[in-house]
């Protein structure tokens, strides 16, 4: 049987292509987009291993081995930068997921349509606000002299932008505030797609609201949670530049808790115009993210094969 399949492989593929030509034609723009925007630039990764000379271009610039990677690891701040990047992302994934699921479930429990729509709009607005604007909103709260918190709540002069110990909490709060609306809508879309007969059956069995959430909603959300988490894990070596650079107003005294890989690379690029180093950093982030996604997916497939991505 297999032999027959192999023998007739090419004609079958050609027949298949011709038979579904409209579908393949429809797919063509998307494929071209992916090729041009996502695959062609991969060639640029060679920059990570070159001493880029603007007058020679990428191809003719001399190879420099792994020297572009050194600047990320030879600095005494390497541990701090990687700790910040991974630490914040871990907290963002954990709290972001819990918070977004909670909001999605609460939204689902609201029966009145109009308030539900209004809440959805309001929780989505922060996601649409530019991080520069967010930084000024944060400043309006945290300004030593005129800030809302100092003047209306604490009635003291805490200099927030000079005190690193507050910033892990502030950054986590700002990130959650900005992203929970968008994430919760993704979970909410899954929740409303759960078969309503399951809820009806649970009600017939005498399940209360908590039990329905625990035994029907959360299991129904499991595939989405796994997918979203795996996608987030793939970007765990990246950070939101605006959040870590703009919101703390690039205050020097906060560098120990606000410098992530992206912020460090940005400063280096601005300082030296050396695109090789930033390409090396991007390469490092991608490779680490790729390995982590593979590992996480492997773990998921060992535990529950159905819910693994691949």
């Amino acid at each position, binding site marked *: 049987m297999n032999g027959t399949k192999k023998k007739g492989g090419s004609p079958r593929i050609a027949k298949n292509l011709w038979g579904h030509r*409209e579908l393949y*034609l*429809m797919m*063509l*723009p998307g494929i*071209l*987009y992916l090729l*041009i925007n996502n695959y062609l630039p991969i060639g640029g990764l060679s920059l990570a291993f070159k001493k*880029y*000379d*603007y*007058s*020679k*271009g990428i191809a003719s610039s001399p190879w420099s081995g792994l020297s572009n990677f*050194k*600047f990320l690891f*030879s*600095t*005494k*701040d390497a541990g701090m930068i990687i700790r910040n990047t991974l630490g914040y992302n871990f907290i963002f994934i954990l709290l972001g997921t819990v918070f977004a699921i909670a909001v999605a479930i609460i939204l689902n429990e609201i029966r009145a349509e109009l308030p539900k729509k209004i809440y959805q709009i309001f929780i989505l607005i922060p996601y649409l606000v530019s991080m520069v604007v967010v930084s000024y909103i944060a*400043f309006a709260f945290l*300004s*030593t*002299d*005129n800030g809302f918190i100092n003047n209306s709540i604490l009635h003291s*002069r805490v*200099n927030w*932008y*000079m005190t690193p110990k507050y910033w892990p909490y502030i950054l986590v709060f700002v990130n959650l505030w900005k992203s929970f609306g968008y994430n919760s809508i993704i979970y909410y879309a899954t929740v409303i797609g759960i078969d309503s007969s399951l809820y009806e059956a649970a009600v017939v069995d005498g399940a209360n609201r908590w039990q329905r959430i625990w035994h029907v909603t959360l299991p129904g959300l499991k595939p989405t949670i796994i997918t979203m988490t795996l996608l987030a894990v793939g970007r765990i070596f990246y950070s939101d530049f605006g959040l870590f650079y703009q919101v703390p*107003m*690039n*205050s*020097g*005294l906060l*560098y120990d808790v606000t*410098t992530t890989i992206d912020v*460090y690379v940005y*400063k*280096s690029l*601005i*300082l*030296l*115009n*050396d695109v090789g*180093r930033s390409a090396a950093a991007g390469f490092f982030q991608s490779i680490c993210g790729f390995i982590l996604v593979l590992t996480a997916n492997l773990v998921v497939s060992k535990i529950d094969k159905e819910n693994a991505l691949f």
Partner: protein
Amino acid sequence: MKRKIVATLLCAAMTLGLLAGCGGSGDTAASDGETAPAQESEEQEAAGEEAPADTKAADAGDMVTVSLYIPTLAPYTEEAITEVQDAVNAHLAENYGIQTKLVYIEMGNFEKSINLAMTTDELDVTCYFTGNGQLSNYVNNGQLLDITDRFESASDELKNSFTDAEITSSSMGGRMYGLPRKYQFGGQEVVVMNQAIVEELGIDPMSVKDMDSLGEVLYQVHEAHPEIYALVPQSTNDMTWCSLWIGGIGLTSFAYTNDIDSTEVKSIFETDSFREFCSYTNKWYNDGLIMPDAISNTQEGSSMVTAGAAFACLHNADIDPLEMFYPNTVSSAVLIEPRAIPTDIGNLQYGISSNSAHPDEAFTLLSALYTDARLHTLLSFGIEGKHYVINEDGRAAYPEGMTAENEPYGGFAATATYPNYLLNPVKADAPVDDYKSIVDEWNKNVKVSPTFGFFFDMSEYGDFITAYKNLEEKYLHPIKTGSVALDDVLPSIQSELESIGFYEMIKKVQTELDAYLAGQ
């Protein structure tokens, strides 16, 4: 069948639409020696630049078009840029046989934009800044064309336009990479004060001549007006741009000397003049004279003083009186006499990208910008009668009803960004009749650091530079604004300097500097 045809046509349209956005970014028309303004306009639009639309330059036939990148310090409309570009091209066609494409980019994005444009052949001639020692980056990265030979065989008029100091400022390793803007260099430090409060409290501005006398006035103002800041940073979180300590030694960002005469390089945090300055600001900060949010400030000090939200800020000044720029202010006596650090001279230059497809034509344009008064006035002021007028006394002014706010071609307000301001007619509100002689006089008398001309090659020390700048940014402004006491953090700073290899590096700089000075 109809549905299939429609689906096929839709797909074809989508595919073509996708590919239409993937056009080449190179200035192909210019490469072919032709102008194609419509295409250029489209490219500029895609790049998010202020782009002139079509031009009459299509009549220019086979002439080569070279692009000219200029930062904007004032608003320019597309229509005005097009009109000026047409007029400039008519002049260039008649006198030089070339054409230009004006590319104006907002100042905040300028450096990033030219870095990107320099990776292709779309940029020919560009303005660039060297105030933070960027020249060494441009040269080390192979971004700027070596123009030494072209300059040496250029006209005497061009060569005689530049002093030895100016040529040194645009050179590295004995080779020239650009031409500095013709202007005065260096600066002096004064205090800009709110005029209303000065008059109200009977303060003699000339009595403020050092940090002690400034302190006395600040305490007086703070007592009378506790509702405003007595002193604010000059710009964002930087307390002052002008200081007794000197930076930029060897075009590095980490080597400082204690004062303009010194040749002993050290960390800024270990210079006596920095320590003395910060002891004042720290006391003033603790006594409530300096704005508490100084390190996260995003405003210009002069704007706050003008608006009455602050009493004073330190400010670097030159030949133009600051009162001219900042209404409702008055300047103090000079706190620091005119002096120039190594990165001051030629801190704005014009050069040619090493990827330019037409380096000869680019040099023709570059040299014309420094020697052709008609061309420079046209480029910087715009079209006479439309963007500016010449009064009976021969001075230039805005046309009636026009101001810096509504004039469509911003060059009149932003002449400092053009190559040779001294070629232009004097403006009606200028405090002098002859800028050239005043500028020459200033440049002759300004005190220049003996380290000027010394260059320390940093091309192999990128990792160190990144680590050092992070360290400096972490501590410099908090200490300079007085928010943090230098003595409280100096042990940590010294330990961090040690760990990044700062002291070995500073020794190398000192050795090379000593050798350079011995050879002078």
